[in-house]
């Protein structure tokens, strides 16, 4: 791999990784507050994108350039749909199975929310699939990041080229990611969320609105997912069934960054994006390993990796 190609792979990997990072941040945030693994999270991202597309472009979208009004509409709709879906999944499929605040002994009905999350994701895929019958669609870019320069590409030193769009995606993704991370540290709501994640019972006893804080976390996670969907979808052909693997990759990113750490999730996303991009660019592996390797990484990290002590997924049966 020449230097130019490597740089190109690195930059497009960062762009992909910024989107993974945003999705992983939402996953980590939700996990931190509730210890719930959001099984439907990836489907929400894709669901948000396609709901926006359906409402603005109808069921036979083409990736033609949009006017300003539909562009703004699409962008807002996708993010709002992601947030709304996430809140809906929480209220319908997750919350009924969570322990009431302060119920020390039980961790709620784990099987309930696992099944609820899986079912919610499946429903999003299948219901959208009823309307959008093709295997994959090309989705236009409402943010028009590709038009920052006339040609849409930049020459890289060493012979590679990179789409300007990728640089825009990196910029937006990192900016939003860092902004949200900072907000969670400095605001009162952020501190309250931290308290809930450390001890929900104690938080409830202080009068903290635990359920509202959890709902806010799900909404933020959904909105971050929607934004990630906007960033990621114009670069590829997208099918309604792509959500699961996208979600699993985001979980892999969250685990790489240390589960429960919002900052780590963003970093993990960037790392995974770069890894995937190099796999695709590599002449040995190639695109067919683009899904296989991240899933394998997820399994290995789950089974062998170290997780934070308090937020661990392991339960050594001692």
């Amino acid at each position, binding site marked *: 791999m020449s230097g130019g190609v490597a740089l190109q792979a690195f930059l497009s990997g960062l762009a992909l990784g910024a989107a993974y990072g945003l999705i992983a941040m939402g996953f980590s945030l939700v996990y931190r507050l509730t210890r719930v693994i959001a099984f439907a999270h990836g489907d929400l991202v894709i669901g948000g994108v396609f709901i926006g597309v359906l409402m603005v472009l109808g069921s036979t979208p083409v990736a033609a350039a949009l006017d300003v009004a539909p562009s703004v509409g699409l962008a807002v709709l996708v993010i709002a749909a992601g947030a709304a879906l996430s809140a809906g999944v929480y209220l319908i499929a997750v919350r009924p199975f969570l322990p009431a605040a302060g119920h020390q002994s039980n961790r709620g009905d784990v099987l309930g929310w696992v099944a609820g999350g899986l079912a919610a994701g499946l429903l999003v895929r299948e219901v959208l699939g009823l309307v959008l019958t093709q295997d994959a669609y090309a989705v236009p870019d409402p943010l028009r990041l590709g038009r920052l320069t006339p040609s849409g590409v930049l020459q890289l030193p060493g012979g590679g080229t990179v789409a300007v769009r990728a640089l825009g995606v990196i910029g937006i993704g990192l900016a939003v990611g860092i902004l949200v991370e900072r907000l969670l540290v400095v605001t009162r709501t952020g501190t309250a969320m931290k308290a809930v994640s450390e001890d929900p019972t104690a938080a*409830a006893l202080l009068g903290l609105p635990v359920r509202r804080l959890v709902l806010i976390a799900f909404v933020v996670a959904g909105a971050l997912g929607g934004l990630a969907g906007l960033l990621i979808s114009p670069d590829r052909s997208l099918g309604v069934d792509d959500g699961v693997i996208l979600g699993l990759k985001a979980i892999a990113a969250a685990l790489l960054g240390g589960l429960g750490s919002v900052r780590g999730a963003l970093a993990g996303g960037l790392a995974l994006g770069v890894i995937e991009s190099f796999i695709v660019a590599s002449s040995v592996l190639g695109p067919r390993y683009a899904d296989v390797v991240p899933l394998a990484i997820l399994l290995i990290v789950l089974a062998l990796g170290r997780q934070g002590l308090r937020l661990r997924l392991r339960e050594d049966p001692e």
Partner: protein
Amino acid sequence: MALLEVRGLCAGYGAVPALDDVSFHVERGEIVALLGGNGAGKTTVARSVSGLHRASSGKVLFYGRDITRCGPQRIVQLGLSHVSDGRRVFPSLTVEENLDLGAYLDGRRKNVVAERREGVYRTFPRLAERRTQHAGSLSGGEQQMLVIGRGLMSEPSLLVLDEPSAGLAPTSIAALGESIAAIRAGGTAVVLIEQHLQVALQLADRLVVLQEGHVILSGRTAEVAADPRIGQMYFGDRNPLKT
């Protein structure tokens, strides 16, 4: 009208009953100790009063108002604060952040919160020295001060303290007793759940003794303490007060 009145409270976990027809009351500015062995139902009383646990029947009245079906948030607003057992600080937050969360419901008024925080620091000067430290790095006694101080941040008229002395060294227990007396002197009533008999006997105006979910004894401290059943409950056959 009593500050807190518990009438015929029954509660359980699933099919297992934990409380059966528990009644007692707390007057303003008074310290009432709930005594009993592990599993007697003391903590369940506290959890039912503070809205963490739903009673299956019976009533909890606070200022004469029925709060049996209220959630914890509403109950904190009304002025009842429950400090649960186990010294549950938020370990990765600083002492100051921990305290401020205690006043979350009034948290938008920054100066009010700061004022209350200073009040807590006056009661527990040790906390003021460690205000920027993470709560997880405090000693056991300091953590206990922190959770009590956090409970006081909502300016409650009734403070429910669940086993504050558990696992503390004797010197810390003595300091704790003084703090509780100071809190009462400030006009806040206290329900003190204790296994440590000495602490309860020294501090409480009245005692309520639970056994297997029933109130078996209640009354003024001196009267109840003289009852032989107390000694039996704690020490098999020895009465500690005779030694």
